[in-house]
């Protein structure tokens, strides 16, 4: 249902018809004053239409208007942070990824090699020193023989020290 203001606006514009028009005009307390007000509104509308039209611009003015608009837009865009490029470059290029992968593989191989070979050293001996894997003497020939192993760090010499072998006469020193 329309309010009084809506009906009043429609009446001023001459859009009320029929029964609605009759009922609205009957509800007006002072119809003569209302008619006068409607005529003033029509006059004001006609005046505004006549005098407030957008002035036609000459070519020079239109050019200046366009130029000022462009300057204003550019000035406004300079104040805002630059937009991110569509294809953002990262440090992880394909080439660098390949190099990084190959270097990681190399480090893995080297570490794995040293870990594996380190486990194979009996008695924890260094791989750079000669290692005694086993040693034995014939107990029937030398029943009291004992064997010990040590390393001399001076010349990286590995020594197999056998005590208790049967002593021999000096003629056995012959060439």
């Amino acid at each position, binding site marked *: 249902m329309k309010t009084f203001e809506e009906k009043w606006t429609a009446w001023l514009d001459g859009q009320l018809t029929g029964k609605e028009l009759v009922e609205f005009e009957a509800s007006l307390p002072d119809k003569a004053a209302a008619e006068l007000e409607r005529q003033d509104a029509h006059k004001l509308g006609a005046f505004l239409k006549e005098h407030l039209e957008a002035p036609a611009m000459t070519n020079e003015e239109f050019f200046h208007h366009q130029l000022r608009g462009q300057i204003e837009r550019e000035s406004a865009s300079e104040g805002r942070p630059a937009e991110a490029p569509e294809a953002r470059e990262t440090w992880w290029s394909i*080439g660098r990824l*390949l*190099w990084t992968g*190959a270097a990681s*593989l*190399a480090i893995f*191989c*080297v570490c794995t*090699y040293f870990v594996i*070979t380190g486990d194979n050293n009996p008695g924890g001996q260094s*791989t*750079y*020193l*000669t*290692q*005694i*894997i*086993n*040693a*034995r*003497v*014939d107990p029937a*020939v*030398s029943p009291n023989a004992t064997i010990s192993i040590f390393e*001399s760090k*001076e*010349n*990286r*010499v*590995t*020594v*197999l*020290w*056998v*005590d208790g*072998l*049967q*002593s*021999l*006469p*000096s*003629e*056995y*020193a*012959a*060439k």
Partner: protein
Amino acid sequence: MSARFLAFNAALLTFVLSQGAPAMASESVWSGLVMANNVPEPTPIPAELNSLEATLKKLFGYNQFQVIGESRKTLKTGEEDWLATSKYFSLHVDSKAAKRSSYVLTLQLFQEQKLLLETKTKLSKSSPLVIKGPQVGDGQLVLLVVIE
């Protein structure tokens, strides 16, 4: 970039494969039967023992070292055997190639036909093996095996 990448991978592959390859058989092994004793005027130490003179003197306490038997074997396949002999002793060496410039040697010391000592060692380059043998008179029989 691709050329450098391929070169890098080739070097890496070479490194990995070289670690698994057996020692190159272009080295020679010197094996010696050495008699150590103390004398008033010691003879100069043999050239093969020059670098070990101080170590041998410190280990055994003798001032003279004489080679009574020796053998120098150039390893071609790494799997060879040889003999260093003196009049009464012989040192039999049987080698097998191992990794990283080393050889697995089985050493047997014989007094004439009698086996006195047997040992299996992994001999590394620049790390000589010294074995204390039996007492002979007032001296000491010492066995040495060195990759040259």
